[in-house]
């Protein structure tokens, strides 16, 4: 008997055959008679082949309809005492990755508030970035043996950047470990130096952390994304939650026609409940666990499952995970697996908005910005109690926290059959994001930090 396979909608930049050509195995008869039109259309999703040109960064006034004029006035009042002061941000990449994305929005907004902010990017050879990638993994708890040679290469590139850069600003912010040794440029002048750590240091490799720690303790303060990610240090530690930009392609309000079109393109039936997980095809995101939870819930409630993510085209492990997910999905036509390129922010936005529930059943997680995105869209969200997720999902108040496949299945059933409660979670979740995890809140945190640092300096 031929094995039946789940359809995977795959959109990649390379001229690969259409999914309909490579996924030709027959589908199982549907348990409920439904139109097949949607499934046919799923074969030819219309998503861009190349990344769209980035839109110009928003101005502060663009946020007024979202956070209110009073909030923006508060930002202006905090910034007023900082006029004429200067700040420098230093990180390791100008494009790609969450830090660059955040700085691309943050720097223009700070500058608009007349806090002149410069952004410098360190340079280095492949050997340097291989080392810093290894550091990154080691700081997340991976095995790593730190040799003297590695230390010397790390310090050499930092020294090269130190000689190339100028540090005349009042506040210097160094992002992540790569440029941490630039602290050696501190020359006793008035400037304050802060280290912004975007990674989880709860369980670091002791050799790498032992190497970096003396540098970090030369800063005036450190910033972490969650108390659980922090280490005990001799310097004050501040908490800056990561944030989303409500005006970005991934989070801006969408006309319902765009949502409908996206669903039509992907063969998603909006007249029936939609449960969605957005994440890379990565075992730590447990997409197979989500399929099992959906199947357990499906015995009692009708719904479709959308697994939308990327990583399967450029990452060999991602392709294996995608295969595992496809096999776990079997012949269920209500499981829609979307392997999307990274520039499909608008499509992801539309899928999240079309969802009845959003799931993030990760086994391990950083802060979990996909959860933030779902909450911002007012979606009842079911998420694992890992990483930074409990900072966002307060169980039964802003969402549902789960610890297992069974728990996830139960919450899918419960929330689909208690829509008023689900709606209340969604409403609270959106308010939680508005208060704590939006770009405007992040701007305020930077301004406050700057003021507090200057006060400590007696300026």
């Amino acid at each position, binding site marked *: 008997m031929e094995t039946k396979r789940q359809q995977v909608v795959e959109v990649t930049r390379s001229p690969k055959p259409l999914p309909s050509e490579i996924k030709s195995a027959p589908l199982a008869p549907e348990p409920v008679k439904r139109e097949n039109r949607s499934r046919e259309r799923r074969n030819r999703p219309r998503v861009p082949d190349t990344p769209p040109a980035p839109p110009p960064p928003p101005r502060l006034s663009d946020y007024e309809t979202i956070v*209110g*004029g*009073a*909030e923006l*006035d*508060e930002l202006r*009042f*905090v910034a007023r005492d900082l006029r004429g002061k200067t700040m420098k941000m230093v990180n390791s990449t100008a494009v790609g990755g969450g830090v660059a994305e955040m700085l691309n929005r943050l720097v223009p907004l700070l500058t608009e508030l007349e806090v002149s902010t410069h952004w410098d990017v360190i340079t280095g050879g492949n050997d340097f970035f291989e080392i810093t990638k290894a550091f990154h993994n080691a700081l997340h708890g991976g095995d790593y043996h730190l040799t003297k040679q590695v230390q010397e290469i790390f310090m050499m590139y930092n020294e090269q950047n130190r000689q190339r850069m100028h540090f005349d600003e009042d506040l210097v912010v160094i992002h992540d470990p790569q440029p941490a040794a630039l602290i050696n440029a501190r020359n006793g002048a008035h400037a304050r130096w802060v280290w912004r750590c975007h990674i989880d240091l709860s369980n670091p490799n002791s050799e790498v952390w032992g190497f970096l720690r003396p540098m970090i303790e030369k800063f005036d303060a450190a910033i*972490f994304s969650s*108390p*659980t990610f*922090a280490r*005990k240090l001799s310097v*004050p*530690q*501040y*908490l800056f939650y990561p944030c989303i930009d409500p005006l970005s392609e991934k989070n801006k309000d969408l006309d319902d026609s765009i949502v409908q079109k996206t669903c039509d393109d992907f063969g998603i039936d909006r007249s029936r409940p939609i449960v969605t997980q957005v994440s890379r095809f990565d075992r730590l995101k447990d997409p197979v666990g989500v399929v099992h939870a959906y199947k357990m819930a499906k015995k009692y409630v009708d719904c479709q499952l959308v697994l939308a993510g990327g990583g399967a085209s450029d990452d060999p492990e991602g392709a294996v995970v995608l295969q595992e997910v496809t096999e776990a999905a079997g012949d269920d036509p209500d499981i829609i697996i979307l392997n999307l390129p990274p520039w499909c922010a608008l499509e992801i936005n539309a899928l999240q908005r079309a969802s009845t529930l959003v799931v993030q059943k990760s086994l391990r997680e950083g802060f979990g910005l996909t959860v933030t995105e779902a909450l911002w869209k007012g979606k009842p969200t079911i998420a694992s*109690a890992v990483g930074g997720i*409990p900072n966002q999902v*307060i*169980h*039964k*108040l*802003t969402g549902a926290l789960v610890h297992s496949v069974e728990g996830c299945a139960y919450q899918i059933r419960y929330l689909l059959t208690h829509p008023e409660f689900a709606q209340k979670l969604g409403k*609270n979740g959106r*308010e*939680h994001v508005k*208060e*704590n995890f939006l770009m405007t809140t992040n701007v*305020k*945190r930077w301004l*406050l*930090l700057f*003021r*507090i640092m200057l006060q400590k300096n007696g300026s």
Partner: protein
Amino acid sequence: MTSAQTLDLRTRAARKPFYFNTSAHLLRIGRERATTLGELLQALRTCSEDSIFQHTFRTLEEHHFIREGFSNDFAHWAFSACNEPGLAERLAGVDVREFTSVEAVRERIVHIVDAYIQSNPRAGERVAREPFYFCASDTVILPTAFVAHNLPEFADGMARVSVHSIHHHFIEARLRLKLTSNDFSLWLEEEMEMKKAARRVDHIDIYTATLEDVRRQAIRIIELALQ
């Protein structure tokens, strides 16, 4: 109230205008953390006043949109991480409006946790599902664009300031004033001689209302007085 009295209220000029201010807070990660109720008790005794303020007064502001089931971080942790609903209920019953100092709030919370552990010794050693991380905040007081010289301006300002300003004047104020009252009620009573309205504003329940509800209810009380 006669129409003459209402007209008087509308036009009465305050001797001292009401300056709407606001507070902005930056969260600091503290040194203390607790994995059991026993450790929580120990940390509660030694942590900074800023930490107690953060987890009681400030958390109300951070979660101002929630109407039920959230009063302070200690109660929430006792419930969600320690599975001790009895303790959580007692801690949730701590109403910050009854206190005019953070130290007094600390004493009350310490007393509740201590008494609970005394009567449930095993509860003190049971490891929680997740640790409690003590935080604190650095605060910056800021002006806003709004000043009220009379009652209509007062209602207008209240409608337009941020919820942070409402929290600053309505909840944090008692620590500044050292009175079990708030800035709004004090101004209504002292400048507008509206004792009854002042009392009604002070009685708005912050544990069953969001800060937006507080704003709406306070404005409604003023509007009723002006009718």
